[in-house]
């Protein structure tokens, strides 16, 4: 096979960090090459170099055997390289067709002629099994469909090399399966694909070869078929990784959180959580399982005070907090690892140190008489950075924005656990993280349980719920379908319950 893309000895530096150090990869025609690495390992940087977003300090790039320089994405496009970014670049109130032709609008004189474009998009969509409706508005279609629009954008521009940056991070399990099918179709039609990911199962499902990157360096390239998940995980993290979480004996204590008949409306004022009741005791992890958008977000927001509830009661340690403010709930020792770390969990333009005191900056020793105590804040930051292994370019002084997702999440987890809560509400605590970070965060959550805290875990990852929880509450359309014992249940039963089927084993 002839290589389509060769990146040789690439070096790319950022202040305080070498993102790519002598990295070389080869992509052959018609293959799926996975780039595997932890968050911050340098995968996305490498692809940004290939896509012309960054200029490497050293190294050469060859496309179809010819050495090229890629100063910007337009040149990458001309060379047949396209990229689906993790965060889609779409105009929301434009139609699918309008989005796809944006930048090379077909026109007769000044008049836009979208008909032919629309027809071509439909044909491409059929050819690759994408099933996209060219006239639909972006804001009306699902995230999975939006991703297909991004794929169509590349196909419309005759891209031969397709880069997917963490394509499954935003997808539901069903959508992931469909994406795998689509990528196989693309491959069958002769396209070459680079898949950036840290999810090993996906690599097994799609990729032919896998190049592993760790801390900016290539660890090795393996044929996926001949390599086990464990071997790849070890290459990525640099040590043995256990996929199983060790838990202490189950010794539940008193009820810490008592939710009684809670009803909550969503932002559109429609009932999102209906008469929901649940108890969480100290020393246990209760998992809330469900397909995205079935009331989990509203449940968590009602519990943490970010959203008012219509009826029902929220009692923590015997105190009724139904009408309490966010501040009062924090003071009542509720900690919250939010669903969206960048929207809720961090002030991205603040330093790590400033973010570590987001909730408790108003108390001694972090402030006295309204004045901040910078020494105490810095000391706290250094303690948490050390204890939770938060890696950044400039330590406590790094802006949160500059941290990788995994390190941002570790910072939040560290902050919340360090507040020594009675109730820890963890929502999607490992979303978008690599195995190393997932293992680490899981261990920390279980530690909290073993230390006698009550933990409410809300997650869309069924594996995570099954691994960590003692009991599992399943929600569907805002209603509690049932509560099952994690030891005796399985993926099938929960899957059925998530679809709204009430099965036995209610306790």
């Amino acid at each position, binding site marked *: 096979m002839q290589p389509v893309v060769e990146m040789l000895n690439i070096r790319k530096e950022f*202040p305080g960090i070498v993102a790519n150090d002598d990295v070389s990869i080869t992509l052959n025609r018609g293959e799926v090459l996975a780039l595997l690495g932890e968050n911050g390992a340098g995968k996305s940087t490498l692809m940004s170099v290939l896509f012309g977003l960054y200029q490497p300090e050293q190294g050469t790039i060859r496309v179809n055997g010819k050495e090229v320089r890629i100063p910007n994405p337009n040149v990458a496009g001309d060379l047949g390289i396209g990229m689906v970014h993790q965060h889609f670049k779409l105009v929301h109130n434009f139609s699918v067709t309008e989005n796809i032709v944006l930048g090379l609008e077909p026109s007769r004189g000044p008049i836009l002629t979208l008909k032919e474009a629309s027809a071509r998009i439909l044909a491409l969509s059929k050819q690759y099994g994408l099933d996209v409706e060219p006239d639909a508005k972006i804001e009306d279609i699902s995230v999975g469909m939006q991703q297909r629009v991004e794929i169509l954008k590349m196909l419309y521009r005759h891209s031969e090399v397709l880069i997917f940056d963490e394509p499954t991070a935003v997808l539901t399990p069903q959508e992931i399966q469909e994406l795998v099918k689509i990528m196989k179709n693309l491959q069958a039609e002769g396209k070459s694909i680079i898949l950036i990911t840290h999810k090993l199962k996906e690599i097994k499902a799609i990729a032919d070869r896998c190049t592993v990157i760790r801390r900016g360096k290539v660890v090795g390239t393996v044929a996926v078929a001949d390599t086990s998940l464990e071997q790849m995980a070890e290459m990525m993290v640099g040590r043995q990784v256990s996929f199983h979480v060790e838990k202490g004996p189950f010794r539940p204590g008193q009820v810490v959180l008592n939710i009684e008949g809670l009803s909550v409306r969503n932002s559109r004022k429609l009932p999102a959580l209906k008469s929901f009741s649940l108890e969480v005791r100290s020393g246990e992890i209760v998992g809330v399982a469900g397909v995205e958008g079935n009331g989990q977000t509203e449940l968590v927001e009602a519990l943490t005070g970010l959203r008012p509830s219509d009826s029902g009661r929220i009692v923590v340690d015997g105190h009724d907090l139904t009408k309490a403010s966010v*501040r009062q709930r924090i003071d009542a020792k509720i900690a919250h690892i939010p669903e969206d770390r960048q929207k809720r*969990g*961090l002030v991205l*333009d603040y330093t790590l140190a400033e973010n570590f005191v987001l909730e408790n900056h108003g108390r001694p020793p972090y402030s006295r008489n309204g004045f901040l105590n*910078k020494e105490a804040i810095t000391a706290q930051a250094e303690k948490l950075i050390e204890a939770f292994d938060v890696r950044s370019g400039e330590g406590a002084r790094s802006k949160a924005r500059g941290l990788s997702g995994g390190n941002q999440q570790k910072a939040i987890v560290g902050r919340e656990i360090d507040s020594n809560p009675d109730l820890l509400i963890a929502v999607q605590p490992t979303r978008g993280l690599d195995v190393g970070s997932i293992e680490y965060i899981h261990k920390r959550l279980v530690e909290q349980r073993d230390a006698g805290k009550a933990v409410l875990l809300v997650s869309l990852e069924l594996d995570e719920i099954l691994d960590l929880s003692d009991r599992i509450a399943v929600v569907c359309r805002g209603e509690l379908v049932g509560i099952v014992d994690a030891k005796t249940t399985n993926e099938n039963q929960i899957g059925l319950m998530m679809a709204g089927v009430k099965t036995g084993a209610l306790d």
Partner: protein
Amino acid sequence: MNFFFRKELLVGLSAVVLGLAAGAILMAVTGNNPFAGYFYLFAGGLMNLERLGNTLAMATPLILTGLSVAFAFRTGLFNIGAAGQALMGGLVATTLALTLGLPKGLILPIILVAAAAAGALWAWLPGLLKARFNVHEVVSTIMMNWIAYWVTYYTIPTFFKGSFETESRLIPEAASLKIPLLTQLFSGSYINLGLLVSLLAVVVISVVLNRTVLGYRLKAVGYNRFAAEYAGVNVNRHIVASMAIAGALAGLAGATFYVGYTSSMQIGVLPSIGLDGIAVALLASNSPLGVMGSAIFFGILQSGKGFMNAMTKIPPEIGDTIIATIIYFAATSVLIERWFDTMAKNRGGKNRV
């Protein structure tokens, strides 16, 4: 932090240098000698104590409106209503100065507090509208500007008509921020106690923004209101507080302008210190100390342009054009910053981290 500060400073200074260069080209194109032009421009602002005093007097309200805009901006709000807030501060100050017959030591604190309160009120309302109904503060503060304009337009001739229909009576000596000591020290210039007020405000705002819980929360709300809400900060209350503080600063600016720099209040003009405050804040990258520096620089240009015009054939509008050009370069400071970054990298990354 140090590095950041240095870079901001560097960018600001580059904007100034580029603006001056553009001004030089303009002077040359219009057939004048730019060296002579700049000599007289700066001499006009600095050459003796009187002129220096006038420069500082000119800078005084600009420091305060610049702080007002910078403070709001640091907390995520765009206060385009400093003019109206200053006008209301000035109107209240003028009213008190013309009605209260108290000794200087008593009346000045009253005037300053009342002017700050009036400005705060004028910005509090847009803050409340923003917090409650998500009305954008740019729109509401502009509207408040015009309300202030017409309120003044009605009040001054109706109650405090002076020798002209468009002017109030002269402020009595006892109610003026000018004091003999300063006036004599600077050989009869317009300099007044407002300068001390503005310098004090620079220190206070700098401390509030960088060292206090309030500043931390206000900035957190400005950067990411969702995270602030998550952390238990009352977002709406902080938005209102931020606008009110910004308004109080602009109100003080009004007092220093109308009962300090001038001695009577004119109607039919929105004070230019309002919009100039935006320029001052922009050039200063919203840092309080920077605001002081850039306001003084603008003060030099403002008070020097007349002298330049008198000594050469360069029209005073060139001075305004230079200011406008500097603002333009400050506004496009991203480009200057990028250029510095490349420079730093080419020198082996010495200036980084």
